[in-house]
């Protein structure tokens, strides 16, 4: 047996020293990346979570004739005991109220249905547009994109008002159709669901077209040639290749239209007339007409919960798409 005495063991080999440095570097890097992530987190905390908590707190309060029109009101002057006393005053009464009056349930269902139908219609209109843009000569694409975004340069409110001028019984559309002789009496489009669909499809079309365009534009069109070469008719090639590959865009576009459309207030208010039941209008009425802040806050919180479902679905689809 040989002894290995006489060979000094190095206290710290160069390897471990280098490792130490790289570890330090790694820690610095991860710290910086954490700091970078911190910015959006802080933003969400300040401008989403805090306002949400305020709304949530109001939704648990009781309405009263005062300024602000609800109790309890938390104040820093009351100290801890005042805060605890205030907590005991909070109640789920408003949420129970929402289940007792069918108006709210009907408004939610009607909003979701109107938003879903409009989203589908927007997809039907937006897909061919995005497809045409993606297949247009590269030199024209920037111009086409510009044209899609151009309506944003005018106020949303004014553009929706403009549709009243087009859709009303003596409006441009009816005059034109009468002049063509297609109809004898003006069509009643204003104050119907059709008007709301037209308004939403028109207003939210860019939100559908842009993600669709992004996913179609990066698609390799030789895939379609390959599909045709292997025996697909152009229609079959569309459904088997183009559409599945554009699904991330379809989902993204649909979410971008559906989510704001559910809570839409301006379009149903201006184009849908008084009998249209949508949650955005209900909320508005509770808040401004009834001055019932707690109930309208509860309506808003439930609306958020309804929207969380499609958002989670959207996130899942996105992470799946990223995994490939």
């Amino acid at each position, binding site marked *: 047996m040989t002894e290995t005495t006489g060979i000094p063991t190095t206290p710290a080999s160069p390897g471990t020293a280098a490792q130490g440095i790289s570890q330090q570097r790694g820690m610095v890097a991860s710290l910086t990346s954490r700091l970078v992530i911190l910015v959006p987190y802080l933003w969400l905390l300040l401008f989403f979570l805090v306002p949400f908590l305020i709304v949530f707190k109001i939704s648990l309060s009781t309405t009263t004739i005062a300024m602000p029109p609800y109790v309890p009101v938390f104040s820093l002057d009351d100290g801890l005991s005042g805060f605890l006393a205030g907590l005991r005053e909070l109640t789920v009464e408003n949420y129970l109220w929402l289940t007792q009056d069918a108006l709210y349930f009907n408004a939610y269902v009607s909003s979701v249905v109107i938003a879903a139908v409009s989203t589908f219609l927007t997809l039907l209109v937006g897909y061919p547009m995005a497809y045409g843009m993606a297949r247009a000569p590269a030199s024209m694409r920037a111009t086409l994109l510009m044209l899609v975004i151009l309506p944003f340069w005018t106020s949303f409110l004014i553009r929706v008002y403009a549709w009243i001028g087009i859709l009303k019984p003596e409006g441009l559309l009816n005059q034109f159709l009468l002049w063509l002789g297609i109809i004898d009496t003006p069509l009643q489009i204003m104050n119907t669901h059709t008007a709301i669909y037209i308004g939403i499809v028109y207003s939210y079309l860019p939100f559908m077209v842009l993600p669709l365009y992004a996913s179609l534009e990066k698609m390799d069109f030789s895939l379609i040639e390959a*599909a*045709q*070469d292997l025996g697909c008719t152009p229609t079959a090639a569309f459904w088997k290749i183009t559409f599945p590959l554009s699904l991330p865009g379809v989902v993204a576009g649909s979410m971008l239209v559906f989510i704001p459309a559910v809570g839409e207030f301006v379009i149903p208010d201006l184009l849908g007339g008084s009998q249209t039941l949508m949650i955005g209008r209900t909320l508005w009425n509770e808040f401004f007409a009834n001055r019932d802040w707690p109930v309208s806050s509860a309506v808003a919180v439930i609306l958020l919960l309804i929207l969380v479902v499609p958002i989670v679905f959207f996130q899942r689809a996105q992470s799946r798409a990223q995994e490939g």
Partner: protein
Amino acid sequence: MKALGSIRRTFAPWNDPAAKPYIVFDGVTKRFGDFTAVDNLSLSIFEREFFALLGASGCGKSTLLRMLAGFEEPTSGRILLDGQDLRGIPPYRRPVNMMFQSYALFPHMTVEANIAFGLKQDGMPKADVEKRVGEMLKLVKLEPFAKRKPHQLSGGQRQRVALARSVAKRPKVLLLDEPLGALDKKLREETQFELMDLQQDLGLTFIVVTHDQEEAMTMADRIAVLDKGEVMQVATPAEIYEAPVSRFVANFIGNVNLLEGTVTGREGSALRIKGASGAEITAQNAPAGVDHGEVAFAIRPEKIKVSSHAPTNGAGNMMEGEVYDLAYLGDMTVYLVKLADGQVVKASALNSARVTENPLTWNDRVWISFAPDAGVVLTR
């Protein structure tokens, strides 16, 4: 003329006047706006042939392939497949399949589903599809990767999937657009032989588009050299190499020395050609009827012998010069010899011995010599 390319298998329907061509391009022209991609081109390809369309980018070779596949329609002229005019037949009804340069694998489908795609499209029963897909996976040695998606494969594996997918339907004709273009050199060389075996085994007609002359030489039965939408020459690789019909073809394939000169007379079947410096050479293999005018004698570097003394057997041509440059490549050495008139001639010698005594070096006075039939006389 002695038979060129006798090393190839004895498959030569193009020499048989009774043989009926399988694919015929008959005066085909294709214009894109002002640009003429294919110009009044006629070409015949035979069944089971491995045919290469060779040319620089923009010569119209890919357009030719796309017209056969049905992605483009000829502006004028006809394309016949087995006697049937293909005009107006959409790609999905043509009995040809194409392997795309980008492979065009469907990214949302597994390897299996990619290969099965065309079969399902034809309404093949499920059990048969599975069996055929299994065969194809085995053929391209990708059985363990059946469930993978294209992005989980290497470039070479993707190329095999594309190949398997395009032959799965057993098309009458397989079109390959730069099939090996995306592979590295070593893999490319291996795959060349695999493609040849595959073509033999399946008995299909292959038309391959390539810009790589070595690839075309290795794989093809015949090569069509294209330039600016026109066919320059259609011949076997050996004929193209040893008997190019024009300066363009001679230059395009391999290395060549073009000894330019004027015809001064005939000597039996040979021509006497006088160069600019006044030196005369004797040259065989002239096109019929050429007995005057400006010509070029095209001779490959390996057909020229370089020696330090004047060769004694005076049968051939010889010229004196000086070693201007040389390159030792291991298997051979390439000499650039500057002649008296300033022209630089390239000659290569095989290094069959490991060590040479007194090897030639820079500025050595040397003699180059070559037989009168070691090259061809070109008028174009």
